[in-house]
């Protein structure tokens, strides 16, 4: 199946290119009388670390860098849409493909980074290794007639409307090894899943749209932590290898064990299903959803994790004595970590409030029924103390307000812009019910032993110099942990005469601030970077 898809997609592209009589007035390339549309981007991204050597992390060469370039990625994304049949009043059939490729060059030019990435991650971090997992983002056929529509194949579903955090966006797992939401596109950070997705547009009051999804077993692990030693992963020095320089450290071992324990295709075990209703009532556009699935990142099995970890620890202790770490491997990981099933219900509401400056409001909420969580009898809530598991209900919501305002004319004239400043402010909140301070929640951005996690994110955009430039700022702040992220950037849009107006240059920065008790932002601490990006969109 994978080979078939690979061949089909490549054949499509090669044939299209070789027979092309492409018009190039559009951003999209159209071939075969417009039946085949091709678009995408090519991008070069570099992160130049600002705080490269910090004594707190300095273990000499084990700091993990020969140079301040922490990330140097060439990535490409290609979308093809084949309009097989198009009839607004009859059958519409389309075939959609998304392909990505990347080369992360930082490990190739920096020996320290190269050595600090675990060997089983290194190759896959540098370039894609698996066509279906890494390169094929989406591949589905879309059939529509009248009020019915069916999409069959690998898809990325987006049910929520937030740009950064995910509240109602529950279907596809993320892969944060090479990017993050809000900065990179969804095709780059979400993992497509094979599914059947059906829609029915009713004529019921409120224009109700019914959506049903069935995933027959395609389960993919959510990569929320990045690979150890890479830009988005734990710093090597945090990873605590028993024998410095000999992989893996304990953090990397546990994360990789969890990944390897993930069940793969199994119709009886790994299916997922759910649905959504979308409607309009008055001035409100709303959705209600339900989704049943396996966790996309597993729980430590308290009955087995001890014995499993002991094999690693004992090998590590021996290695620290002999100087040679004999890694015991990942056998038994599937017993040490378990992926459990649970159900999420949720929804969204979108509206505009004329009496409040015509601001737009987005509310999203979710309720996880019996979310599986690890526990610690010590009450520490630390992931290194796990000895139990339980299920808890979790409720969360986000409220986003958006508006635009015009700067004074003098400033607009100085900036040579007529564009308003566009901004949004989001508050997000999550509470674990019946929390007994023993739950392991740090992967959900909770402070240890805290049932609540909440915070703000803020975004604004100002275009100036006749929209040749755009200044965008994105910030987030977690109230409980004190973790902060600030990402200002300026983008220059090259004029039309240069590559048909598709070239962009971005200069920005990523600044992270954390408190001592913030386990998540520990990953990003000392990762403050200047962002340099050149992209071509077509």
């Amino acid at each position, binding site marked *: 199946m994978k080979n078939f898809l690979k061949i089909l997609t490549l054949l499509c592209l090669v044939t299209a290119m070789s027979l092309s009589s492409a018009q190039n*007035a*559009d*951003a*999209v390339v159209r071939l075969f009388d417009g039946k085949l*549309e091709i*678009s995408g981007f090519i991008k070069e991204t570099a992160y130049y670390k600002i705080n490269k050597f910090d004594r707190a992390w300095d273990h000499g060469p084990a700091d993990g860098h020969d140079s301040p370039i922490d990330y140097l990625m060439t990535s490409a994304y290609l979308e093809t*849409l084949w309009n097989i049949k198009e009839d*607004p*009043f009859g059958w519409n059939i*389309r075939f*959609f493909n998304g392909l990505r490729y990347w080369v992360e060059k930082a490990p190739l030019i920096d020996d320290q980074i190269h050595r600090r990435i675990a060997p089983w991650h290194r190759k896959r971090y540098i370039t894609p290794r698996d066509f279906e997992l890494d390169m094929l983002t989406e591949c589905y056929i*879309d059939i*529509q007639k009248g009020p019915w*529509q069916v*999409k069959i194949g690998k898809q*990325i579903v*987006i049910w929520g*409307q937030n*740009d950064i955090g995910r509240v109602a966006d529950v279907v596809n797992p993320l892969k944060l090894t090479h990017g993050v939401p809000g900065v990179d*596109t*969804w095709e780059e950070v979400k993992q497509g899943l094979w599914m059947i997705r059906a*829609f029915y*547009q009713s004529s019921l*009051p409120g*224009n109700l*749209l019914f959506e049903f999804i069935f995933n027959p077993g395609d389960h993919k692990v959510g990569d929320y932590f990045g690979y150890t030693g890479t830009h988005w992963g734990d710093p090597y020095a945090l990873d605590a290898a028993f024998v410095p320089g000999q992989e893996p450290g304990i953090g990397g071992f546990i994360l990789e064990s969890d990944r390897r324990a993930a069940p793969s295709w199994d119709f009886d075990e790994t299916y997922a299903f759910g649905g959504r209703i*979308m409607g*309009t009532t008055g*001035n409100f*556009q709303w959705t209600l959803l339900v989704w049943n699935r396996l966790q996309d990142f597993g729980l430590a099995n308290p009955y087995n994790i001890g014995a499993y970890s002991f094999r690693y620890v004992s090998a590590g202790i021996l290695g620290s004595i002999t100087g040679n770490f004999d890694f015991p491997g990942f056998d038994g990981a599937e017993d040490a970590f378990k992926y459990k099933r649970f159900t999420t219900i949720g929804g969204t509401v*979108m509206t*505009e409030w*004329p009496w409040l*400056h*015509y*601001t*737009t409001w*987005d509310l999203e909420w979710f309720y996880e029924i019996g979310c599986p969580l690890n526990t610690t009898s010590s009450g520490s809530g630390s992931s290194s103390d796990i000895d139990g598991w339980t299920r808890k209900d979790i409720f969360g919501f986000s409220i986003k307000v*958006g*508006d*635009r305002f*015009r700067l004074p*004319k003098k400033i607009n*004239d100085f900036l*040579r*812009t*007529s*564009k*308003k400043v566009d901004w949004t402010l989001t508050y997000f909140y999550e509470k674990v019910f019946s929390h007994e301070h023993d739950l392991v929640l740090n992967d959900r951005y909770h402070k240890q032993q805290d049932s609540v996690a909440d915070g703000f994110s803020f975004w604004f955009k100002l275009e100036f110099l*006749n*929209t*040749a430039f755009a200044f965008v700022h994105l910030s987030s702040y977690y109230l409980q942990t004190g973790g902060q992220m600030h990402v200002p950037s300026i983008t220059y*849009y090259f*004029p*039309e*005469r240069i590559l048909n*107006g598709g070239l*962009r240059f971005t200069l920005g920065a990523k600044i992270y601030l954390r408190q001592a008790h913030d386990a998540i932002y520990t990953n990003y601490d000392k990762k403050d970077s200047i962002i340099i990006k050149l992209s071509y*969109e*077509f």
Partner: protein
Amino acid sequence: MMSSKTVKKLILSTVVLTLLALPAFSAAAEIELETAYTAEELAKVRAWEKTWVGKKIDQSNIDQVAEFMPESYVGIYKNPQEWGAPPEGFWFTIVPYRRVKMSKGFLEATAKYHTQVKVDEKGYIANITEIAGRPFLEPKTGLEIMWNFELNNHGDTYNYRKFSPNINPKTRTERLADQEYWEFYFINRTELDPKPALPDERNKKEYRRGMFMTMFKPAEFLNTRMYTLRPIDQDKEDVSYLWYNQFRRIRRLSTNQRTDSIDGSDLIYDDEYLWDGQLSRNTYALKGKKELLCSRNESLKGTTRTKGQAMLNNLKFERCKLYIVEAVNKDPNYIYSKRVLYIDPETYYIMWSDIYDEKGRFWKCFGNFTRPLKSETGAMVPSIMGSCYNDFQRTHSGLSDQERLQPPKSGIKLSEKIFTISYLQKTY
């Protein structure tokens, strides 16, 4: 056999019925909409045309026809290098005035409904869902003229692709916007059944017009789509949703956005058609008439332009006596202090618009280029083929050419079901 009495009664009733029906027939056959010129005025125009038709107007002789040009545009032709002109400068040709007739369907609807128009105390047409065609044959006020503008239905459905460079003539750089539009009129229909309005079950939310747009350029907006529904109720604002393709997100667009500029252009959303919003948002004053040169019968094919050039060359302009309507927005914080609209009395398109900033200083001038377009039903429907936009405070320009990438189409088969969130999200 019928008695003579019966026969007489039959003949009498037939005559009476015929006499009663005659006005309707004669109205349909005879309704004449106003023209730009009376016969006397036209004679004078023809006399002027003897000198000027066929003449190329450029920097060397623009002063001689300056009285028929928006003042700001005379400046463009006189100082072409400031506006990115090619070595030969800017130029256009004068053509004879030609009357533009509305379609047969439009005329029939006007004949049928113009006597039924009811205006309430606010000046709104109270029975707007029951009428079509031109409501005011001899408009006396600015608001009546604007109602005539409002009920111009573009053939009931309309599809066009806008090739829109945003031009910095000083640096000769431009950025291209490329969008495709579909319009659909729920009421005031004259060409396509059902007429004059969709039945209630197909228009439960009482919309007057829907507009769907797909963007192709700038590149990051590729396949971003938007729809806007305009309510019949003049006191309600448009409802707009945007599908932002790059982030696969649906956004409810704020009404605030209507006064935001569109990408890098000199337009705000209200500037579409040179006014695109509920009539109730402005007050209108009729300031008289003025003869201006307009492009109202010609295709834009044949015009020429190089990159960085703010105006098309080889436009064909004819004299036309336009209504002058001053529109002042009721929002004291509105971006413009006023618009002065120059409206074609035959098509009720806004042909030129002078725009003033919040301090009352002249800021922008926009122009529309129109011509009759043969619709898919065979009717000739006056349609906008392109526009020019110039910001005179910042020396910045824009153009839109709706014939360049694909021919516009009027009277197409279109369903109101495209104005739904699900259609926004469909694959591409």
